[in-house]
């Protein structure tokens, strides 16, 4: 438990308290109708944005096809649940999957067995996405860079979308819903988000993370320092697709989505989130994800918003994007991470300087 000794205790405690508050909100949110949906989306969008941030923010390679990898996670989860459902129907004869899940999902609350189902599905989906990401990375990362890499990933993701669209078992053009049989809760999504955040932090703190950052700053120098640049890029890309797969699979348990939605639109959405939050800033991505989900799912449905804008959310969205890029082009948090220092500053005005110095270390 060396890591525990070396942690900044104050930050640790604040973070734990913050997570606990979110947990409580997540648990009690199920009482309301709209809140769980918004929370789910916030957590899932955060996960997917973090995934993209690894490649775009940390590795510095620009990817336009993130939606395609989320789609693979989503599709895998859907197929898995369909297959499990068939398996149950076959082997148990009269007992249908749905009836088992009546036991699993009782009274709106997810039974522990349901959690196990979802978690296993998500893990399998993530692994499959990671494998595909690994193959794509292996082929594309060595040969292409810059905008060309971005465009090729976009092309590949549109191929995924086209393929998924052509299979009726995936709902064809409209997407299929598995949420009618089993759906997840904000609590589970929050747990995934926290776990992934810790995973990314520890990963980036290791030599692999350092290599990724070195590749971002200078490929040639990194190679000259003994960093296997291509391998590092493939590792980062695979890691990113793994997390994208988790995001996609979790989405499958929240709402049905048409394959076409995972194309250009979703890829760009997550690019916007990470740039808005600040490239490379993990907490920035989460904050931006919160803002975007709130804008789409809360702001635009409020009665006091003029009808014209409520009907055309893209206009305000576009204006805000352009303004932020013009006046704060490094995003909301820039390169920095969200810390609790400001919170303590509220109480201790005198020791301001000392506090920041300690906080930085």
């Amino acid at each position, binding site marked *: 438990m060396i890591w525990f000794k070396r942690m900044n205790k104050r930050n640790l405690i604040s973070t734990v308290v913050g997570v606990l508050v979110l947990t409580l909100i997540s648990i009690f949110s199920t009482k309301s109708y709209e809140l769980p949906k918004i929370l789910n989306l916030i957590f899932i969008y955060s996960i997917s944005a973090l995934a993209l941030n690894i490649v*775009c923010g940390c590795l510095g390679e*620009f990817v336009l096809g993130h939606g395609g990898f989320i789609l693979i996670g989503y599709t895998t989860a859907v197929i898995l649940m369909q297959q499990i459902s068939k398996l149950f129907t076959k082997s148990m004869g009269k007992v249908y999957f749905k009836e088992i899940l009546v036991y699993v999902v009782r009274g709106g609350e997810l039974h522990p067995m349901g959690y196990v189902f979802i978690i296993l599905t998500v893990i399998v989906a993530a692994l499959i996405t990671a494998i595909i990401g690994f193959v794509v990375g292996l*082929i*594309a990362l060595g*040969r*292409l860079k810059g*905008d*060309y890499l971005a*465009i*090729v990933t*976009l*092309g*590949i993701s*549109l*191929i995924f*979308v*086209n*393929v998924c*669209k*052509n299979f009726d078992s995936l709902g064809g053009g409209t997407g299929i819903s598995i949420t009618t049989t089993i759906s997840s809760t904000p609590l589970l999504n929050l747990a995934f988000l926290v776990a992934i955040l810790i995973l990314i932090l520890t990963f980036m703190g290791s030599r692999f993370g350092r290599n990724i950052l070195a590749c971002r700053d200078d490929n*040639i120098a990194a190679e000259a320092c003994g960093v296997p640049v291509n391998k590092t890029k493939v590792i980062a890309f695979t890691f990113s697709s793994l997390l994208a797969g988790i995001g996609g699979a979790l989405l499958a348990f929240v709402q049905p989505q048409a394959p076409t939605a995972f194309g*250009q639109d979703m890829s*760009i959405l997550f*690019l*916007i989130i990470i*740039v*808005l939050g600040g*490239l490379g800033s993990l907490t920035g991505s989460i904050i931006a994800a919160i803002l975007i989900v709130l804008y789409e799912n809360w702001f635009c449905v409020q009665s006091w918003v003029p009808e*014209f804008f409520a*009907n*055309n*959310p*893209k*206009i305000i*969205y*576009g*204006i*805000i*994007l*352009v303004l932020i*890029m*013009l006046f704060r*082009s490094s995003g909301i948090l820039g390169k920095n991470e969200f810390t609790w220092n400001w919170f303590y500053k509220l109480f201790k005005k005198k020791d301001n300087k000392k506090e920041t110095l300690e906080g930085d270390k």
Partner: protein
Amino acid sequence: MNTLLEGLKQGLELGSIFALMALGYSMVYGIVKMINFAHSEFITIGGFLAYFITESLLKSTFGNSIWSLLIALVAAIIVCVIVAIITERFAYRPLRKKGSSRITALITAIGVSYIFSGIMNAIEPEQLQFHKFVDKNTSFYIAIITTAVLLALLTFFVKKTKIGIAMRAVSENEQAAKLMGINNNFIIALTFMIGSALAAIGVVIYLLDGECFTFEIGSVTIGLYPFVAAVIGGIGSLPGAVIGGFLIGIIRAITQVYSNIGLSSWVDTIIYGIFVIILLFKPSGLLGKDVREKV
């Protein structure tokens, strides 16, 4: 055999339209190294404007004559050019001045395209049908000839004229060009103007034979195809953009013609598959130049 010929013919027409639009993407990218996502909205704006003007002219003395079409075309070009100037001046130039990263420029372009697309959606969310000025056969010849003429003119302009040479200088090295006394803001604005004018011409030719369209014509119906065409051909290369345009136009039309064997639903897989394969073997496109980083 006839179907194949029919497919090729349609493909050439569609290809020349894609080529015109691809030229815009290619020139802008060549000069500011930015994927101008707003280009697809320029296409939509051009289509919308041409539609509304022809609709009102049809009721006037011009009626169904070729003049209505020409006036609409010129108006569409002018408005597209103005929109491009405004976009460049108020969204892209401030970014360039600050030396922002390219990803910032890209997000700004996406923001601009959202604004335009939102406005267009608000103006007319329903499907429209353009007036049928010419039949399919004539529009085929118009498309081919326009593209050939414009490509020749542009090549001459870029290779031989003073402004064209300045344009190439700015795309090679903006700072150095500036120091040599080139007004690079003007050159970049001019590139945007040419690009959007080509977009307007392209979309009018596309609609010419009575095509139906919506506010999503630029972003969804035509979508990324011209951009992909520009990349296949090698971004920054004029003949490359045209070759790419023809390639994609032909693939698209042929899959359309053979829809009875289910090819049409796989069109994206085929186009993007070919696109990815070409880029893997020729990382900077068919006619693009390979740039090696110096140590």
